């Protein structure tokens, strides 16, 4: 079945540390086409904004992603209402 792009998925996206500064915001509600079904789809969609988004989320750049506070992978599914965090590699301790 052909994906229906008139329907949308709304997620809350959080940015931490260097990414927060690069994007100039710490959180936003993002509405993406329903065809965006996983973490890789969301980062690809954000990358299309260009500028800092294209640079910071370029393929190969190390970015950690959590979905609802659990570490996620590229194929982790996302759905409306989820909280997705984009984070640089951690440097605590």
């Amino acid at each position, binding site marked *: 079945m052909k994906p229906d792009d008139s329907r949308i998925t709304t997620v809350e996206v959080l940015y931490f*540390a260097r990414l927060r500064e690069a994007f100039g915001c710490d959180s936003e509600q993002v509405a993406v086409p329903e065809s965006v079904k996983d973490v890789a789809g969301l980062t690809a969609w954000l990358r299309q904004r260009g500028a800092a988004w294209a640079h910071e989320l370029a393929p190969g750049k190390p970015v*950690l992603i959590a979905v609802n*506070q659990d570490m996620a992978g590229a194929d982790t599914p996302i759905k409306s209402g989820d909280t997705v965090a984009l984070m*640089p*590699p*951690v*440097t605590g*301790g």
Partner: protein
Amino acid sequence: MPVRVQTADFDIGAEIAAMRRGNPKVGAVASFIGVVRDLNEGDRVAEMTLEHYPGMTEKALEKMVAEARSRWDIYDALVIHRVGTLKPGDQIVLVVVTGAHRSEAFDACEFLMDYLKTRAPFWKKERTPAGARWVEARESDDAAADRWS
């Protein structure tokens, strides 16, 4: 609570005393304290600010403590990590593990620090004469954590 994220300093003596109180079976206490250094990548560090992900950071630390408890025969584990602005010489992180014998306590303590360095959402930004900068993750920390997998 075996996990605390706080701006306040901590007192290792008081924490260990609290963990030992009423537990005469404890035969070993292993601990680690991380301290802010005044030099990083060749530059003087005037101060650093630690940021975290409230909620997820605590969950990630609790998961690590649960894993340490399942992998080693230990009695208790405590992790305290400070956030906010810290100066050289300030304590950043405390890990304490109690057990019957030293070997398990040492290993669990080292495991907790290695995992914390690579998996707990904390980020350091340091202020140097050259300006403020985010500290980069180290490959050697990944290698240290990989030892346990």
